[in-house]
């Protein structure tokens, strides 16, 4: 067993070890960045200013939020969220498309629905728009 291992290790030169370490670092940082950190990243859906739902972005789902004008459809897919459909006439929040980074928001004003991506830290207290 140990002989076998030593047999293999003798093929790993200094530079090989270096590249092994660097690439392992890449694996670890990719894992930390895409799998561990986003665990804290959630979507916050509010209706009429009241909290309607918070959910992880990890698992895809769709949800319909009833507002004064009708249903606003929100979709979460692959760490991103978007408003799929909304009864508002101008459709501004639907045109906004996917949001994924902490602090990004889409507001469906007429139907009083807002979706926000929450990260581990909030970079600002309020948004000027």
């Amino acid at each position, binding site marked *: 067993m140990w002989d076998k291992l030593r047999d293999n290790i003798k093929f790993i030169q200094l530079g090989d070890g270096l590249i092994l370490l660097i690439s392992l670092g890449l694996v670890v940082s990719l894992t930390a960045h895409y799998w561990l950190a986003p665990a804290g990243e959630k979507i916050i859906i509010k209706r009429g200013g009241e909290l309607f739902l918070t959910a992880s972005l990890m698992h895809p789902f769709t949800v319909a939020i009833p507002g004064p004008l009708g249903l606003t459809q929100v979709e979460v897919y692959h760490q991103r969220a978007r408003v799929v459909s909304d009864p508002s006439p*101008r459709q*501004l929040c639907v045109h906004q498309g996917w949001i994924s980074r902490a602090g990004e*928001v889409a507001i469906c*004003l007429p139907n009083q629905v807002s979706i926000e991506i929450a990260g*581990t830290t909030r*970079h600002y*207290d309020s*948004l000027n728009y």
Partner: protein
Amino acid sequence: MRLLIVLVMLVLAGCSQPQTYSQESYVFGTRVEITIYGAPQALAARVTKQVLRDFDEMHHTLHAWEPGTLSRMNAVFALSPVPAAIAPGMIPIIQDATRYSVQSGGTFNPAIGNLIKLWGFQSDHFEAKLPDPAAIKKLLAERPQMQDIVLDGIMFHSTNPAVRLDLGGYAKGYALDIAAAYLRSQGIKNALINIGGNIMAIGQHGDRPWRVGIQHPRKPSPIALLDLRDGEAVGTSGDYQRYFELGGKRYCHIIDPHTGWPAQGVQAVTVLIPPSTHAGTLSDVASKPIFIAGVAGWQAAAQKMGVQDVMLIDAAGKVYMTDAMKKRLNFKLN
């Protein structure tokens, strides 16, 4: 390790949560967000509720096309020069708005309600349609302006029957000033008020200033961060707020009173207003003339409105700033 992070987060959350009271609501035809720091929960909840109730009241009073105080005034203007009794609360608003309109050389002109209606922006319903150019010309020729309104004691009338008030570029800022004064009077030392994007700061958020994100005109995230000092207000006019697209061209809700057409060539104008009793109002009003002036005339327009801190983003996404504004904005996000 992950457990540790979770523990630290719980502790941090435990420290910061109870001191901040935050309420989001949809009144004033827009999204209102009130955040209060360091006040007892009961007091924060009570004053917030009152502010939201006042906003709702103001919304009905100042609404440009739904039945209310302002729409009644508009009906009286049409009967020019027949006078009628004015609602007392409207007197300072009319005087104030007239003063800003004169200061802007008529580029801020709330009297062009008919023009805004013609463009379809006085409606909750969407229609991507250009108005008849002849109709625009006709409305322009009627030259409605704030100076046409005559206040005489408890009576008012208009010398021009074409005057129709639309306080869309004024009301939110005015409401900010009212709300800030009320909160201060109730002993609130630290608060952040956001009415449809116009923001005013009172005090600060604990040991750091209130921090606001300035919306990127084409992305769902902020373009820059700005720390607001006590009493400062920030406002943005953007072509992304209300607009329609037709033939690949964007027509936004900011209409140049001199041409009758939506302003072109600018994506957004942000103004930062120093503390004063009118800071909120000015944060709403001042961005419009600068937006309409465009890349060529924005500095002159800012000077005219007495605003030092301005950022303008042109149609190509290029950012222009005054030196004063450059010092305040932080573009290095995260």
